[in-house]
């Protein structure tokens, strides 16, 4: 049979095809876990309700990290919350994305010189999309989500892979900031 031109797809090509199909579903159904630490969180209610209606993009809030795709960090992170953020991030199922809202996640924002607040979120968990501004207005937030969808489409939202590959580096940064915990119980962490 010479007329059939189909060449055997290699396993990687098959995987990539499946991955692209998966990406279609993933970018059209993004569920968020909102980690509302800072003031930027106030921009989310208008984004969700009738003014901007995030649900038309297939997005919605979710209750637990296991179910969520996006970890939405809205604002500054103190050292105590950072520890919990990392724990939460590691509980999410892959592929997972991180969106940082506001300048606090980029460079510390107005808290840049505080002893209790970290400046660059990127050092501890990989961030896929930043939304700049102090605070960013709702259009910017929505735009950030659309950017994330584009990034997923073009396979550039690879933060979770980066975290897996460079885990030691992230771990080192985390320990450098947070310090080792000697006693593991409910009160010391």
């Amino acid at each position, binding site marked *: 049979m010479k007329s059939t031109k189909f060449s055997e797809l290699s396993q990687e090509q098959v995987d990539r095809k499946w991955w692209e*199909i*998966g990406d279609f*579903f*993933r970018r*059209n*159904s993004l*569920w968020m876990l909102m980690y509302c630490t800072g003031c930027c969180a106030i921009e989310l209610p208008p984004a969700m*309700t*009738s003014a901007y*209606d995030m*649900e*038309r993009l*297939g997005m919605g809030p*979710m*209750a*637990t*990290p*296991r*179910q*969520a*795709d996006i970890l939405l960090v809205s604002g500054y992170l103190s050292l105590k919350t950072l520890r919990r953020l990392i724990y939460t991030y590691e*509980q*999410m*199922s*892959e*592929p997972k994305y991180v969106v940082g809202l506001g300048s606090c996640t980029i460079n510390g924002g107005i808290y840049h010189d505080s002893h209790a607040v970290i400046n660059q979120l990127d050092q501890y968990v990989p961030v896929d999309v930043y939304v700049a501004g102090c605070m960013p207005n709702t259009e910017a937030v929505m735009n950030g989500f659309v950017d994330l969808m584009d990034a997923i489409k073009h396979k550039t939202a690879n933060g979770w892979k980066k975290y897996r590959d460079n885990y030691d580096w992230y771990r080192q940064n985390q320990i450098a900031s947070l310090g080792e915990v000697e006693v593991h119980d409910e009160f010391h962490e």
Partner: protein
Amino acid sequence: MMLSMLYGVGIAFFGFVLHTSVAGINRKISGRLQKRYGPKWYQEFLDIFKLLSKRATSHGWIFDFGVIMALGGIIATAMFIPVTNNFLAFPDFDNFFIFAYLIAVGMLGMAMSASGSGNPLASIGVMRALTTMLAYDIPYMVVIVTIIKLTGTSSISGLALYQQAAGNNWFIVALPLGAIVAVLALMAGLGKKPFETYIAPAEIASGPLVEYGGKQLGMLFIMMEITHFIEVSLFVNLFLGGAENIFIFLVKYFAVYTALSLISNVYARFKIDQVVLFFYKWPLLIAIVQGFIAIYLGWVI
């Protein structure tokens, strides 16, 4: 035998597709109610397939086994559903009690898997789901007993045919009090708003579903869509006279489900003991009164 089994699997698949679409459309409708644009009508499909494509976390074999048992039990239950008079897999064997109890296999599987995740919130959610079930199922069953006693058959398609026969009203008209109870019980069964204590995302982090992500959650979503399909089509067959053809079925199905979601959109959530007290106060009383006047006095419209 094997052929009707395949037929049954087809019905389960039909139910999944149908309910997922109807639920998606209803999300759009509630979006419009809240002056939003709302998601795409096929959003539920996207959600489910996305979940299936993710890499999940598992808490051990019972966690996975429970999910398989849940989906398997619900598929088995859906296989017995008569969609229309002719679109059914097992003509004489669609006994009501099969639905009432086979559906429990799925529920048990899900409950087991949720508790197997080791999260206390999941166990609390299961506890609430079972408690809610204890509340709403008794009045509902009493109404069903009345219907079976009146007609002398417990076959769902038989009951539908009975209502279609000349001179008989649909049971929603014939037994108006019972129909009120059935609607309330159906709302609780579907987890609609005043009674959705066991999901309660802001309170117990979506209850039984708290530890699921990825394929397990996707399979549970499929299971829930089919469960809702079973419950709504039972209502259509028991109280709305079933359907002569597929078109009538779709209309009735859509009407019932949409009406219920519209009602649920304007309600807040009950506490769990309020649910129990509510169902044992009014619906149970109404159901028993309906039973008495229908069976012993023969007052059927």
